[in-house]
């Protein structure tokens, strides 16, 4: 056992840190630091730098443009970019579709779709959830019927994050009537195809990350089918199981804990900065200890220790604890804001109009960020579902 990272890993950390410091555009950095709204061009400005450096697709194999990192290097990359207040890589094309295309796509599909993903020219939305079928994909109803060279798709997808940024949709559709394992296919759909309506769903924090997509007799060329018809379930499971690194959100928690300390050092109560009061020190220390324990639990797994007998369950444990911890940090951020959490000038959530907020710019987005953080325990398989899974493995049910 060894507590230090290797010299090489430390070197890599310095390299990433320097890169973020030098290449992350200042306005994007400030938006992330203050929890303000990011638009597609903000992400792209950063992703373009990562692309140049060859770091945009950490989870892809080297032959498709991945950097060939070890799990620890990927871990360090995530942490350093987040600590430097760079935007996360949220693009579903990079995180989700890319690995599926690489594993199951045709040569033609790879040639056509992978390069624009890496260059952030084409953004992909994920179309899995449907109204009434959240964590329960088996009750999916969007259908695709083969007509000549096309599939004709009808249905309704929901919770498609960032669809308003996106050019294409990858999507599960029902092509048969039996068990999901035998009746679902995986289709790529150009969002400009006639018959598609994207409707943004205003979030509790006023944001429009969420959308729903209506598909009304949408004709999709058969060449846009991934793999075989009715095998979509296999590809979807591969996709969902693929991206587990960083599921604990340690980097994101560190980023927000640093923000909390910064804010607690400036906001005053009774004339003194919050961080000088024993109560605040104890609360912050308690979160910091929890975060250390989460981080080392994750690193222990990275070095091969397995907790649960069943695969995937360790990720559930990290997800549960990681999201709850991040939510606790956001709760304390809200508390630090005090009365400054009350005003809500939506325009001021954009950096360009930040001066319209009637509070200090560092505090303007805290209430919105707090509200948004409630999603952490809901999205990506609600924590109740994760606990069910973990209990089954723990209890050998």
């Amino acid at each position: 056992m060894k507590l230090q990272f290797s010299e090489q890993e430390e070197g890599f950390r310095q390299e990433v840190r320097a890169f973020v410091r030098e290449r992350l555009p200042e306005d994007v950095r400030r938006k992330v630091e203050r929890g303000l709204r990011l638009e597609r061009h903000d992400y792209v400005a950063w992703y373009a730098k990562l692309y140049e450096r060859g770091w945009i697709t950490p989870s892809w194999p080297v032959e498709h443009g991945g950097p060939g990192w070890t799990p620890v290097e990927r871990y360090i990359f995530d942490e350093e970019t987040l600590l430097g207040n760079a935007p996360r890589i949220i693009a579903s094309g990079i995180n989700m579709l890319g690995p599926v295309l690489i594993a199951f796509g045709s040569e033609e599909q790879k040639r056509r779709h992978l390069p624009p993903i890496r260059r952030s020219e084409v953004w992909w939305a994920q179309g899995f959830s449907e109204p009434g079928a959240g964590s329960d994909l088996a009750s999916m109803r969007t259908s695709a019927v083969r007509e000549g060279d096309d599939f004709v798709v009808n249905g309704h997808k929901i919770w498609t994050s960032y669809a308003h940024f996106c050019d294409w949709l990858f999507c599960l559709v029902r092509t048969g009537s039996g068990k999901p394992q035998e009746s679902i296919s995986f289709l790529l759909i150009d969002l400009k195809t006639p018959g598609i309506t994207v409707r943004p769903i205003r979030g509790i924090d006023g944001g429009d990350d969420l959308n729903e997509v209506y598909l009304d007799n949408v004709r999709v060329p058969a060449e846009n089918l991934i793999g075989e018809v009715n095998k979509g379930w296999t590809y979807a499971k591969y996709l969902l199981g693929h991206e587990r690194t960083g599921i604990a959100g340690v980097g994101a928690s560190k980023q927000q804990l640093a923000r909390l300390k910064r804010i607690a050092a400036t906001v005053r109560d009774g004339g003194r900065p919050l961080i000088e009061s024993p109560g605040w020190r104890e609360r912050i220390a308690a979160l910091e200890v929890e975060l250390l324990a989460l981080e080392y639990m994750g690193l222990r797994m990275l070095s091969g220790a397995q907790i649960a007998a069943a695969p995937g369950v360790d990720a559930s444990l990290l997800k549960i604890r990681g999201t709850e911890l991040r939510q606790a940090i956001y709760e304390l951020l809200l508390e630090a804001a005090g009365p400054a959490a009350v005003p809500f000038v939506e325009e001021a959530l954009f950096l360009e109009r930040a001066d319209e907020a009637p509070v200090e710019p560092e505090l303007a987005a805290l209430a919105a960020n707090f509200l948004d953080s409630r999603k952490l325990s809901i999205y990506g398989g609600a924590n109740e579902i994760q606990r069910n899974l973990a209990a089954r493995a723990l209890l050998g049910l």
Partner: protein
Amino acid sequence: MDFSLSDEQLQLRDAVQRFCEHEYPAASRGVPDAPARMDERWRLMADMGLLGLPFSAGHGGSELSAVDVMIVMEGLGRALACEPYCSTVVLAGGLVAAAGTPAQADALLPAVVRGERRLAIALDEPGARYDPLPLAAKAMRDGDGYRLDGRKTLVFDGDAADTLIVAARTSGAPGDRDGVTLFLVDATARGVDLHAYPTLDGRRAADFRFTDVRVPADRVLGEAGGGLALVEAALDRGIAALCAEAVGALDALLELTVDYVKVRKQFGVALASFQALQHRLVDMLIACEQARAMAGVAAMAVDGGDAAERARLVSAAKVQVGNAARLVTREAIQMHGAMGMTDECKVGHYAKRLLVIGQSFGDVRHHLRRFGQEALA
């Protein structure tokens, strides 16, 4: 010791409930209303006598208690009503009724009761964080009257107010208990500069800058230099009212969630059948009931005479309501799943109102400290 409502109070509760059901249809709660619509409802509230509830019959009021105000606020909270009832009637109106000269009360209260005049209190200053003591705005003697200078922030419903009650120092330094004086200031007076903005719950507040504002001596509210105790009493009345509003909102949230888990299916069965959710719903219920009891206690304490006891119990209520709100909103959103994260679901609107109440007039930590000062003295 009695928590039961009188027959008149039960009638008031029913009347408020009917009014709210009619005026705030469930589907549009939380959606900002047109000003004309709000004005219309304000008139209806005046017609019902709600705006005169706590004032004397001589001013057109019905001389009812803080418990009756609680009944109204609970109904408004459940309906997510956004009218400036607390600002105008409870906080500022209450101050005028408590400390105003007959002339001041005659000039303001009948108009408030008729819905023709709105008031607000301008108390907090930038960076103050719930503590009125550091107050720095100044009012200097100037001939017969005063010249007022200073900044105020987070004046709820400030842009709708015709008259402001402004706290400023006529002597002493920030931190002194003595020397704070209250002034009745016309919102349109020269030197009053308003910057209004929306708040998280879809309502409005304002920052004010007072520059060399001339205030005649007869607009001093209460004794010069003795404003702090008045402010503390008014804030406790306001907090008690907000606690009642929060209880109404908590009830609505619990009801929405119970209804949702009974209908929403996952893996073929209703969410309500999952024991883990059942147990958490019971904890939500207990939190709501403890909050309800404490809102009642706060109302009764406000009606009582002893200032220290009032402070202790009102702070306890604010703590309990704040903790209940945190638990119930968190669980309500979680159990609604992705739907709970949208603006299209009522849960978020109640959550935001509760969040604003929680962060206003002292948060849990602030009131825990204030409670401790009384209880552990």
